[in-house]
Structure formats: structure tokens, C-alpha cells
């Protein structure tokens, strides 16, 4: 979907057109859900958070000024939502559940599962901002500038988070970390 079409649909959605908003959901859900799945770890929790973020976006669409893509705005909403809603205990329980699921699958002898588990553990040890920056930029879904806007961090900090986080993940996979 190009920017002009997105702007037209946003305007229609602001006027209460649910069909237009549905099309915006369809267009933006892959990037938003992929980010949250990588960030949160549990697919069910990530999709639940994504749905809340989209529903909240419907309420605050007036605040979207159109200076960036809508998916950037939605990811910002989702990240702020997660920050407000997080509870250390529930996060730990969700993480343990995710580990248990992965470990069960790993015992089946799947090497890919072992890699997933190692990456997930390494990812969960990272600070929140660093983990979020990696989840946004690793899959090439968002640029560093977009990640900076979503996380409300300086561009240099985001680049540094991505570089350091990438090195930690590569180390977890047993690959030599690249300098930079």
C-alpha cells in the first residue's frame, strides 16, 4: 500500500469508516505482529498485544500526523502499551512457558529448535530498549530512523543497541560476532 492510499484510508477511518480501518489493519499487521512476536517471545501474547494496539490506534487516530508511516505509529502505541501493562511476574511466567514449549520441541531432536531456544534466551537477557530495537530492525521491517521514532530514543542509541544486540545473538548461535 502506497503512502497516498494509506493517507486516504486514514482520513476515511477518522470519519468512522470501519471498512477503511479494516484495510489498514490488513496492510499493517504483518510488520506489527512480527515485531511483537520477536520482542515478546510468546506468539499468543504478541498477537493479543497487537490487537490491543490496533484497537487503541482506532481511538487515537486523530493524533497521527502523517509525518511517518502508520505502522510506525501503531508500533509506538504497542510499545507504550506493553511498557504500561507489563508485570514482572507475568512476564517471567510467560517466558518460562515459552521456554518449556521450546524445550519440549527441542527434545524431539530438532536442531532449529535448539537455535530458537538459544536465541530466545539471549534475547530475553537484553535490556528492554535493546530488545525492542533488535526486534524492529533485525527483520529489515523498520529502518533505524523508524525504530528511533517508535522507541523515542536518539538515532545513535538505536544503532548502538542493534549492533550490540546483534553481536550477543550471534554469540548465542555460536557465530563469530562482527566488529562494529
Amino acid at each position, binding site marked *: 500500500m502506497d503512502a497516498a492510499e494509506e493517507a486516504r484510508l486514514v482520513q476515511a477511518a477518522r470519519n468512522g469508516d470501519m471498512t477503511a480501518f479494516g484495510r489498514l489493519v490488513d496492510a499493517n499487521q*504483518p510488520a506489527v505482529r512480527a515485531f511483537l512476536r520477536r520482542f515478546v517471545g510468546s506468539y499468543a501474547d504478541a498477537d493479543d498485544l497487537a490487537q490491543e494496539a490496533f484497537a487503541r490506534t*482506532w481511538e487515537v487516530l486523530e493524533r497521527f500526523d502523517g509525518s511517518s508511516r502508520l505502522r510506525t505509529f501503531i508500533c509506538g502505541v504497542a510499545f507504550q502499551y506493553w511498557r504500561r501493562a507489563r508485570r514482572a511476574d507475568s512476564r517471567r511466567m510467560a517466558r518460562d512457558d515459552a521456554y518449556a514449549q521450546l524445550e519440549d520441541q527441542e527434545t524431539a531432536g530438532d536442531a532449529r529448535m535448539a537455535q530458537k531456544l538459544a536465541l530466545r534466551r539471549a534475547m530475553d537477557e537484553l535490556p528492554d530498549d535493546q530488545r525492542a530495537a533488535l526486534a524492529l530492525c533485525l527483520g529489515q521491517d523498520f529502518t533505524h530512523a523508524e525504530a528511533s521514532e517508535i522507541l523515542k530514543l536518539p538515532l545513535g542509541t538505536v544503532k548502538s543497541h542493534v549492533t550490540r544486540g546483534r553481536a550477543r545473538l550471534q554469540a548465542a548461535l555460536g557465530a563469530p560476532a*562482527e566488529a562494529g
Partner: protein
Amino acid sequence: MSERDADLLMADLLGEAPETPDPGFRYDVLFRASIRARRRAAMSKALNQIALFSAIGLIFPVGGALGLTWEMAQPLVMATGLLALGLAAASVTILGPRAVLARSRAILTRS
């Protein structure tokens, strides 16, 4: 393997992008959005009612504090009551479920 390929591999291992279109996801989002809208409308209505009845309830104590006796206030209270009744009757006529003026309103809304 290039850095880009390595990044994409790690991203894929951490969480795959969902397949699209996903009508189930869209349905859930629209359902949640409509629930939030209904909840917000109900909250707004409740706050308006609380404010209205609080204001009505405050009239007499405030009037009493200002030295307004019942004899002095009676014409004002009666006039206010008549106006309120007129407002209620007009609202039911124009906006009620079986509104007398529903047809006229529909024509005006269409044009």
C-alpha cells in the same frame, strides 16, 4: 552468509511474520475496537448524568445558603420545571425510538 541474510535468519528464528491476509485477526481487532467505543460512550453518558443530577441536587442547598426562600424560588422552580418538561417532550418527539418527526429527520439527514 551476508550480514543481511544472517539478520533475516535470526529474525525468522525469533518470530516469523504472520501470513496475510488474516481475516480472523482483522475481525478480532474490529471487535475490540467496537467494545472500546461502546465502553467509552457508556462512560461519557454516565459522567454526564452524574454531572447533571449533581447540579440539580446542588441548586437547593446553594439557594438556601444564599438566603433564597421557597416562596421566592417557587416561580423560578416552576418555570424551570416547565422548560425541562418541554425539553423532554421535544427530545422524545425528535429523537425517540418511534419519533413522530422521524420521517422528516430522515429526509433532512439524507439531504
